[in-house]
């Protein structure tokens, strides 16, 4: 099995992602050096926190450029949570221009039902919209763990591989080419989450 790097940009608990990789037999290393991201066989781009500070930190480390380079080389790359959100063009959070790997915006949940809490926190069903190698084995009723106050709105529907619903449907797994990303946390989603990481570990970056 191949090796992966987990991009360290001061955003969230990377070690839980690392532990989940270890559990499925994916040899992973947390790296802060952009050169190691460019030369990696696989990249995992996680994140918890705010879009504004995350983008600042990425740029300060030259990590934004490294990610672009890795993706241009065809490196299979997995974004998680904030890692997904900053792959779009723009985030309402801190009014932030983001990486633009996938066209579209990230919006804050503005819900009519006062009983629905923000952040959207907990387990929710992930519904397949379009097959993808990383989502292989997903079954109706499978739930993943979410924690987020903002959600992605990709410009093109063909980037959306799965949806979830919180008052309204929203994209929770998006991708293009060798880039794939989830709004939920596979590393905290029990067996179904570990299966997703295991699929990513075997993915050749095509779909």
């Amino acid at each position, binding site marked *: 099995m191949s090796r992966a790097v987990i991009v360290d940009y001061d955003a*969230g*608990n990377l*070690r*839980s992602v690392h*532990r*989940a990789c*270890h*559990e499925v037999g994916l040899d992973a290393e947390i790296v802060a050096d952009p050169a190691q991201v460019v030369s990696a066989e696989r990249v995992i781009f996680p994140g*918890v*926190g*705010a879009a504004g500070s995350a983008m600042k930190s990425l740029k300060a480390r030259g990590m934004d450029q490294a990610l672009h380079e890795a993706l241009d080389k065809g490196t299979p790359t997995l974004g998680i949570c904030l890692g997904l959100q900053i792959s779009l063009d723009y985030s309402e959070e801190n009014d932030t221009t983001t990486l633009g790997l996938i066209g579209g915006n990230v919006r804050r949940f503005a819900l009519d039902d*006062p*009983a*629905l*809490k*923000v*952040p*959207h*926190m*907990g*387990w*929710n*069903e992930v519904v397949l919209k379009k097959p993808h190698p990383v989502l292989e084995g997903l*079954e109706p*009723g*499978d*739930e993943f*763990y*979410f*924690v*987020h*106050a903002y959600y992605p709105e990709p410009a093109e529907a063909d980037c959306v591989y799965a949806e979830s*619903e*919180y008052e309204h449907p929203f994209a929770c797994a998006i991708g293009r080419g060798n880039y794939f990303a989830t709004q939920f946390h596979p*590393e*905290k*989603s*029990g*067996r*179904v*989450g*570990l299966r997703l990481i295991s699929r990513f570990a075997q993915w050749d970056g095509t779909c």
Partner: protein
Amino acid sequence: MLSKRLIACLDVRDGKLAKSIKFVDTKDIGDPVEKAREYYVDGLDELVFYDITASSDKRNIMLDVVEHVAEQVFIPLSVGGGVRNVSDATDLRLAGAEKINVNSAAVKRPELISECAEAIGNQNVVLSMDIRKVEATKELPSGYEMVINGGRTPMGIDALWWALEGERLGAGELVVNSIDADGTRNGYENNLTRMISEAVRIPVIASGGAGKPEHLYDALTEGKADAALVASMVHYGDYRVSELKSYLHDRGVKMRMSW
């Protein structure tokens, strides 16, 4: 649609699992890592560890427990008990906890909530509230009062006011623990849970008093809780995690049923 969560709380003293009745008479009931793994495999949605270790020189034992659990249990893990500053919170996060529970120290020094929220993100800061029922007065208009030190010290602070203040300071979630109901197995304090859940826009976890599956149902419906926390019900083997989830699911509560 978001599922309701079933959360198990494990009190840990000197690295061993303990269960208190009304916060006194704790006794060892097993290995926390083993129990955590057992519940995870049986479909538990989230785990909470509460460190009730009395002596501060034994605190590092807890970090080991968290580390071992995080290696084997891939669901959200929340840890509390004795978190006094950001560095306590960061140590626990590094050991593998997603969320950090703050309790007594936050009542004494409310800035702890905002400091932790700044350092680890609002969504990872859980404000745990120990609450007792009192006669409503001008100072305590909700008729519920905050208590600290494991329920021994009343603070003269209104519980509803404190819940709103906690949300304002940046807590991402609230644990509403009734010390009157804790350990009695007679059911949660649903009036209290509902009052707080209706007042805030962050998730509320009902705690204290669960003894039967219908108590969970009541907390999640009548009590309007987003999650129900159980302890002795599952620790002593009276109910299995999967059994409680099936019961709630069969009664129409949205639960995660495949794992």
